[in-house]
């Protein structure tokens, strides 16, 4: 599904190399987790995959189902099936959450040559998806993420994911700022979306999210590279001993 080869990325403004040769393949139906200490380049990877400005790819390639991703605009990547659940979801005053979701869904359908969804069908769809995530009518009516609590913002990200049904879901520190109950709700939302045709890349600093979203593969990232890859047990090792031992071992 997602193929990342030898990806080198630097910050445009600071001329600072952040990713120094990332190799990663996420297969359809699998959940990959990326763990790593602060500053290892995890979030940069997620931004580069989604097409955020400010990063320069100096080497390497990224493809989704064989299609070159790096040449595409963010909206084209979205239509191709890439979805980034933001670590800090953006507030957009004046744009209603429903309007936002419907505009996004129909824009993607249009890009794929499908017909736009009618207002009635959309309402039905959104009600159903929102119910599972315990998102009430008020949250749907309010401007995007404005006045939402940390947990509400993250649930709103998962709602978008559920509505847009992307092929490749990237979750950037989705557990940050969540209490246990909220984390469980979010994890249930993600797990409900796990399917054969969909890949997940779950970026997290802590192991606790992976108790709820159990990964197939765990990667450890340090200093802009994947330094170790293993099964779910690798996450438990990090939880127990911290990153120090692993980093020392691969150094």
């Amino acid at each position, binding site marked *: 599904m997602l193929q990342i080869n030898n990806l080198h990325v630097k910050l445009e403004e600071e001329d600072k190399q952040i990713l120094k040769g990332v190799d990663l393949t996420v297969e359809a139906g699998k959940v990959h987790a990326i763990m790593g200490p602060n500053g290892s380049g995890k979030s940069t990877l997620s931004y580069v995959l989604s*097409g955020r400005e400010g990063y320069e790819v100096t080497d390497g390639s990224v493809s989704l189902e064989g299609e070159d991703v790096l040449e595409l605009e963010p*909206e084209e*990547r979205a239509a191709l099936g890439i979805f980034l659940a933001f670590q800090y979801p953006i507030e957009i005053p004046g744009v209603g959450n429903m309007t936002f979701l419907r*505009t996004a869904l129909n824009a993607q359908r249009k890009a794929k040559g499908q017909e736009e969804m009618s207002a009635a069908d959309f309402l039905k769809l959104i009600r159903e998806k929102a119910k599972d995530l315990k998102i009430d009518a008020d949250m749907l009516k309010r401007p995007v993420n404005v006045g939402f609590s940390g947990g509400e913002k993250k649930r709103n990200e998962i709602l978008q994911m559920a509505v847009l049904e992307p092929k490749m879901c990237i979750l950037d520190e989705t557990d940050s700022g969540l209490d246990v109950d909220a984390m469980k709700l979010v994890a249930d939302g993600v797990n409900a979306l796990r399917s054969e045709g969909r890949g997940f890349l779950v970026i997290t600093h802590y192991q606790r999210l992976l108790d709820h979203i159990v990964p197939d593969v765990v990667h450890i990232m340090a200093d802009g590279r994947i330094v170790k890859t293993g099964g779910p047990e690798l996450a438990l090792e990090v939880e127990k001993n911290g990153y120090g031992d692993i980093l020392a071992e691969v150094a």
Partner: protein
Amino acid sequence: MPAVAKQKLAELKRDATEDRLAAMSLPEGAGWAAEARGAALARVREMGLPHPRDEYWKFTRPETLTRAEAPKAALFDGGEPHLFHERDRLHLVFRDGVLDMTASDALTLDGIEIERLSDAMAKDIHWARDVYGVLETNGQNPVQRPLAALNTAYASDGVVIRVTGKPAKPVCLTYLHESEDSDAILHHVVRVEEGAEMTLLETGPAAARFNKVMEVDVADNATFHHVRAQGRDHERRAVTGTFARLGSESTFKSFTMTVNGVLTRNECVIELTGDDAVAHVAGACVGDGDDFHHDDTVFVTHDAVNCESRQVFKKVLRNGATGVFQGKILVKEGAQKTDGYQISQSLLLDDDSQFLAKPELEIYADDVACSHGSTSGAIDETALFYLRSRGVPTAQATDLLVLAFLAEALEEIEDESIAEEMVERLSGWLERRAA
């Protein structure tokens, strides 16, 4: 300014004014109307037409509004019906500034008396006498508005509306622009009697050059709602003056949407004369291109206790467009417990567009809460990326953020269904422009 220069300017203005007046003729009439027109003409001569050196014309060049001949304006067909066409309303149609009686509804509606200006002027005794030119004259001090006086003198058509009850539907004035060189001067007079209320809708560009004055006298406990859209013709020019006087516990709310139009100057002069009155004036403007110029000039005077006023103006400017806001809140001595608010903001979609703002507060009472703010900003890049990352193309995402920016002004429209109609039409216009 040195005395010699001052005299020179006065001469220049006098000559320019006489040139314009020589090209016009006063509509015929006698009695109170002739008196009002004559007095207005004298005021125009006394003040002289606006000049770029005048304090309140520094940001907006008045030449095309003052010169004898109206610049031509190409006709525009948006391929859609005018706003409010599906609404239950009393509909009046003006073609290039002339009321078309056959295309309009009969002038009858429970709760209001509505007449053509010329009919009202033909009567020896008429209530409009106490308003026509009177509120405009009050509004000339301390800032002169000579184009409004010119209007009072020469207005060739208009309606006078007396509201005595609560009419079941709004009055809607549709202004068609059908001739490339039309030069229309309309003057409306509204008196909302004690406890009465009405909604007035206006839509359309009206003419190649349009000078409109509306005087609104809102009595105690009365309510006046006003919503207008100034059409989409790119080349039309308009100068409008709204003069309102508010009695105690009365409400006045006015909202204007301006899209396109090469030159617009909307003046609004409000005087709160009775205690506990509320006045809101708001505008949303979308301008595109370096020949687009839009100016809101507002003056709110608090001359009573415990009144509230709000000025909310938002402008979206792109491709070298210019927006101007000159807004003032004057709180007179004794106007305690005044709550005055003023915000003017622009969203500049590129470096070539500009927004010029002159917010003013002048306060002579010590127990008041007045605030004003003015900002200029670019589109929020983070929000734009967020939308794009969800698959919304840049142009469409920009439109969404533009509408979001204008929302605070559109929220000033009291009637939700009218607000919705405005938003819908506006988003359609934005979408088609992008296509």
